């Protein structure tokens, strides 16, 4: 039988350490066979970005992340889930978001991690504004249609069997 699902949801200004977060979720457990993690970084494509400013809706951000994790736990036999999203000024190369999933087998962990990221991007209330290297304030990052499509594919997808 599966043990309790360990979960950690964080909305924070501080950076996170992948190894520490994985340790938190897996420590003391011997029933986990697979851990998958995704780390999203602040990317500067044109050499013009000074930082991204991440604005969030306090309270709803945590609630919505918890609802997305609830949904992942219903779809896949997960043993541990960790989701961390940073806010505030984040420089190119720094971490922004972390998803960690743990399961007995790799398929559930891989699929759930992908699902969590797709849903977080379209449902978690965070917004990115660019700050440019010349000191000016750039524009708000626009939502991308392919992110909506990526989230929608899970509505049609057959979830990994819990059997």
């Amino acid at each position: 039988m599966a043990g309790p699902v360990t979960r950690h949801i964080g909305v924070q200004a501080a950076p996170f350490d992948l190894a520490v977060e994985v340790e938190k979720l897996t420590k003391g457990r011997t029933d986990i066979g697979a851990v998958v993690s995704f780390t999203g970084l602040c990317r500067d494509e044109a050499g013009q970005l000074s930082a991204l400013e991440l604005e969030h809706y306090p309270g709803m951000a945590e609630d919505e992340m918890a609802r997305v994790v609830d949904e992942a736990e219903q779809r896949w036999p997960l043993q541990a889930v960790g989701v961390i999203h940073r806010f505030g000024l984040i420089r190119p190369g720094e971490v922004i978001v972390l998803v960690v999933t743990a399961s007995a087998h790799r398929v559930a962990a891989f699929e759930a991690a992908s699902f969590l990221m797709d849903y977080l991007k379209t449902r978690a209330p965070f917004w990115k504004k660019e700050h440019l290297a010349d000191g000016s304030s750039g524009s708000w990052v626009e939502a991308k249609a392919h992110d909506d499509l990526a989230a929608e594919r899970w509505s049609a997808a057959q979830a990994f069997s819990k059997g």
Partner: protein
Amino acid sequence: MVKLVYFAWVRERMGMAEEMVELPASVVTIADLALWLAGRDEGAALAFANPEVVRAAIDKHHVSPQTPVKGAREIAFFPPMTGG
């Protein structure tokens, strides 16, 4: 009275992060509220220039434009999310 909160470019165009308002009886749904706000001043008109783009939440849950606002304590308006 209901608390309205704004985020990202909706907040910038509204010129404020939050406010308390008394809703007129004509405002039944989120779409009605957006239309009513848009009529207040230039900034609000700009914020809701494309009302189908602006997303809403009632008491920290995503809602559609057709959702009734009755009973809401906090209503949020914001652009499509770009986290992750």
